């Protein structure tokens, strides 16, 4: 390895760590890493740095039903733990037919070999097809589970928005007299939609947190939302309990990713019973 080649490979390591290289360069780097412990260390270091960029994404959380759908998929065939999908098709050996009409042993052996080759190709084809079908089935199941979950949520939301008794207004406190909001919630449902308007702008690193208030004054967090430049925002809530369990709702500004209890004055709020 010349110094020139080594230097060229060193130059390419950041791009390799970000998977930006065309295949031929990527292959050259891979080969070089096999022979050069220093570059191997540097590459691992850069790759680890690249992975940490994930933490620069704005924080968000998946819907609560995603975990259920994932765990349900673990029971699906083709989802065996620890390794790639198993080839779980049972192949029964074909019964060997009588071949007395063939003249010689050699001829019988040739036919037998030919038959085995055809059978092997056939079985391999079936296995491949089976794996493809299993994968397709698993993908369809996820899509179906996600669609069903979303459809149920949409149906529930439609019920909330079409029932006049579900709407409750939230009014602004002293700190934000112009702010106003609405919550759509029904006593038998955990789902609610909160709409907020003309909220004061949020300092960096803060979000509005919704508090669901029990009759005894204890509070559950209903989640966080941010507002646009006009101070408008909204949030679909999946509450820990059906809304019949709560008497009121409040919204406060809290440091991201939320507080266990309110730490600042209420911006908007109102009764929901």
């Amino acid at each position, binding site marked *: 390895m010349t110094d020139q080649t080594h230097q060229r490979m060193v130059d390419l390591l950041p791009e390799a760590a970000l998977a930006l290289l065309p295949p031929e360069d990527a292959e050259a780097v891979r080969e070089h890493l096999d022979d050069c412990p220093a570059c191997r260390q540097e590459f691992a270091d850069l790759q680890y740095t690249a992975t940490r960029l994930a933490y620069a994404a704005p924080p968000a959380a*998946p819907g609560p039903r995603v975990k259920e*759908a994932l765990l349900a998929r673990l029971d699906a065939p083709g989802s065996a733990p620890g390794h790639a999908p198993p080839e779980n098709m049972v192949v029964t050996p074909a019964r060997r037919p009588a071949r007395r009409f063939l003249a010689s042993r050699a001829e019988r052996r040739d036919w037998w070999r030919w038959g085995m080759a055809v059978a092997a190709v056939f079985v391999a084809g079936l296995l491949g097809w089976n794996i493809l079908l299993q994968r397709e089935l698993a993908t369809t199941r996820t899509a179906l589970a996600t669609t069903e979950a979303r459809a149920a949520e*949409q149906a529930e939301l439609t019920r909330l928005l079409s029932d006049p008794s579900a709407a409750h207004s939230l009014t602004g406190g002293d700190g934000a007299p112009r702010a106003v909001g609405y919550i759509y919630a029904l006593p038998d449902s955990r789902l609610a939609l909160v709409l907020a308007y003309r909220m004061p702008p949020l300092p960096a690193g803060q979000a509005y947190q919704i508090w669901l208030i029990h009759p005894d004054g204890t509070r559950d967090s209903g989640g966080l939302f941010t507002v646009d430049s006009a101070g408008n925002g909204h949030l679909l809530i999946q509450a820990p309990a059906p809304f019949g369990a709560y008497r009121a709702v409040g919204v406060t500004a809290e440091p991201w990713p939320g507080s266990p209890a309110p730490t600042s004055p209420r911006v908007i709020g109102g009764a929901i019973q």
Partner: protein
Amino acid sequence: MEEDEALVRRLLDGDPAALATLYDRYAGVAFSLLLRMLGDRTVAEEVLQEVFLRVWQRAATYQHARGRFAPWLLAIAHHLAIDELRRRQRQPPRVADREATERQIALVPDPGPDVAETAGAREERERIAAALAALPAAQRVALELAYFDGYSQAEIATRLGEPLGTVKTRIRLGLRKLRDLLHAPELGFAVDEVDPR
């Protein structure tokens, strides 16, 4: 708290509770990455399931890999999101339908009451934000376009109206500088916190 490595070993025994615990720990950061890259909650949630299904199916390959669980998981998430972005590039965009409009309502940041960001993830987020903020803006932009948007260097050059060589230099310098900043004591990081892979 049970170590990630012990949980991965339980995956090999087919223990779904171990996957559920890993999900509780890392679904937040993986989903944040996927949503940033894909821009659509529904698609990001589907890919998130794929990520954890891969973890479930390929726990054995992790056993042989060196390093911690989170970088491995995030690398899987990044690869699957890039695959999704490339698949999308090959297909014409779908006509916006009513369902998609209704879905907009779910697009606001919604941490939900179920998945709380762990203290470790928050610290890591603050470190990366500080290190990125310390990079020259041109290097940061090039890195973000490459990592989050999955653009090739030629595509980045076109988007920014810069020569390809300039973009390459920015990415090379940017990633190395980011690595050095994440090691640097003035940002409050102990060197031994960095994965010793």
